[in-house]
């Protein structure tokens, strides 16, 4: 019994780490601009598809990965510069709809530039499963967990110790005050989008060897990452990580012990439950409005 529990736990942690990376992307952009970027899932897709494409064209894997992350970051910058910035003064709902439109555009471009087939990506260090206490773990899962940990540490260093990171945080707390002390909000937004896109791409590349990639993987992953961000508290970095891991584990346990057919539904039931009972999420700040 416990070997089975461990198996579910490991599966949940692996996919939870991916959700955490996607949720971080949501949180960073939300922090900087109060926009929920529903094109986040598409950055995940671009990361995986671009790596496969370059890999098939003969590029060595590290170069393909670097190029894919860079391409995703550029797309994030382009999204901010050409879609979000011109609509700066519009309401949040308008901006969200703009990002939904961008996600549809990116999916369409993906089918034109690449194709609609499923693509496998070679695992980074082989497929031989590792036995741990009766459960098995793929080496790729170790990559997922390891890289996610490194990314989270890098981000906490970035936000806590660098001027640019602190500027991002300042903008999220109070935009006007940040502008008054000389922070270029425009630059902050560009960095936020670019960074989130890169995070999404990394997530897509890490998971592609396990789950295949195709033009529409972004839809589900984006929505689940959003669910994770809501669960952990939209806008909270640690919340995104906790929410992602929690969602992954809940899904795996649900599939294992309840019914495997309703796995996807769990993420959306969680969104509903959080919004009903705990709108600011697990670690989010209670928002208060001055009347």
């Amino acid at each position, binding site marked *: 019994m416990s070997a089975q529990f461990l198996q579910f736990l490991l599966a949940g942690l692996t996919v939870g780490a991916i959700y955490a990376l996607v949720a971080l992307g949501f949180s960073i952009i939300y922090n900087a601009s109060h926009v929920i970027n529903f094109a986040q899932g598409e950055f995940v897709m671009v990361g995986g598809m671009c790596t496969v494409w370059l890999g098939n064209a003969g590029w060595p894997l590290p170069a393909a990965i670097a190029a894919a992350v860079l391409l995703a970051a550029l797309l994030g910058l382009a999204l901010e510069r050409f879609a979000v910035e011109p609509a700066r003064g519009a309401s949040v709902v308008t901006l969200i709809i703009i990002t939904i439109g961008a996600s549809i555009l990116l999916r369409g471009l993906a089918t034109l530039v690449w194709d609609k087939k*499923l693509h496998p990506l070679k695992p980074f260090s082989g497929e031989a499963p590792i036995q741990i206490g009766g459960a098995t773990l793929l080496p790729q899962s170790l990559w997922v967990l390891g890289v996610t940990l490194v990314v989270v540490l890098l981000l906490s260093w970035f936000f806590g110790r660098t001027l640019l990171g602190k500027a991002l945080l300042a903008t999220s707390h109070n935009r006007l005050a940040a502008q008054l002390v000389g922070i270029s909000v425009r630059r902050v937004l560009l960095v936020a989008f670019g960074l989130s896109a890169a995070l999404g791409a990394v997530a897509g590349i890490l998971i592609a060897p396990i789950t*295949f990639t195709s033009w529409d993987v972004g839809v589900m992953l984006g929505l689940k990452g959003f669910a994770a961000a809501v669960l952990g508290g939209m806008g909270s970095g640690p919340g995104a990580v906790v929410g992602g891991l929690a969602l992954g584990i809940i899904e795996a346990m649900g599939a294992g012990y309840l019914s*495997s057919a309703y796995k996807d539904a769990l993420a959306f039931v969680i969104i509903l439950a959080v919004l009903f009972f705990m709108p600011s999420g697990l670690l989010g700040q209670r928002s208060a409005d001055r009347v």
Partner: protein
Amino acid sequence: MKHRAWFAAALLAAATAVQAQAPIRIGTFLSVTGPAAFLGDPEQKTLELYVEKLNAAGGVLGRQLQLVAYDSAGDAEKARTFAKRLIEQDKVDLIVGGSTTGETMAVAPLIEQAGMPFISLAGAVVIVEPVKKWVFKTPHSDRQACERIFVDMKARGTTKIALISGAGGFDKSMRAQCMQVAKNHGIEIAADESYGAGDTDMTAQLSKIKNTLGVQAVLNCGFGQGPAIVTKNYRQLSIGAPLYQSHGVASKQYIQLAGGAAEGVRLPAAALLVAETLPDSDPQKKVVLAYKRDYESRYKSDVSTFGGHAYDGLMIAVEALKKAGSTDKARVRDAIESVRGFMGTAGVFNYSPTDHVGLDVSGFRMLEIRKGDWTLAR
């Protein structure tokens, strides 16, 4: 008066001449993209290739064939829309299509209402049971796959198995069929798991199967992305029992996606996949080898049984057109139903008013995947 008569005669001659040149329109809706792409893509390629070849050889009934094709992307709603368009706007003479069971079943009521001869390329037995007047199909049905697999299992002494299936129409249908016929072969189903359509991780379900005592083999009912991931997870969990798949994975794309994990997987499939290794005395060899060579030399990619189903469907349709001598839908339908002894890539077809599948299990071979290629199972 004389001018009028000449004029009328000329007009009539012109009209019949135009009518004689009007192409025979064959409609199709296939899942060329989407989760069933490795079914629909070779199907479309096959139809295009053979329509071209038939036209180059003079067409059928002295008329050229025209293929009207739509991509339904595995979506039953889209399939319905396109089928409606084929029937009402494009006014095709018959339809050869419907890559998946879900799409075919969604379209069937339209077909019956419109009285359009329809040859489906999908698998589930529910398509032809109860027999629908206008709907035929060319692949082996899922019940035949279950029977073929159970025969193989019984011969190896397997009595207790686990099932794992997806959420699609074919998956559910095959699961139901297998559960129904299992006892006829003395096989007990000890575990029954399922996964969702877009699921990317089946380790939870397989883990439960692994922990079920006495399971000697596992049968995965499904096609497309699901079985590829099940196969990968299966090897990851180091489950020693043999894994059986359905004929829904009879494409090199499955081997490409599952990678090394596909080694040793068994499945029932048409002899088409092992055409070269068939003995010369095998009655199927000529047809399957010819199709394989045509397809591979034209498209430079490996043949799959799905393309074979499309070939069978088109050739049966052409045979029926010739037999009926016209494109009158009722006569074509009757002609299809009276096809006997037709050798296709899947086997010999013998349609009848009570049998719209036409195949028996003799054309179904048990294959095993070795070193990334198909071989006849020992």
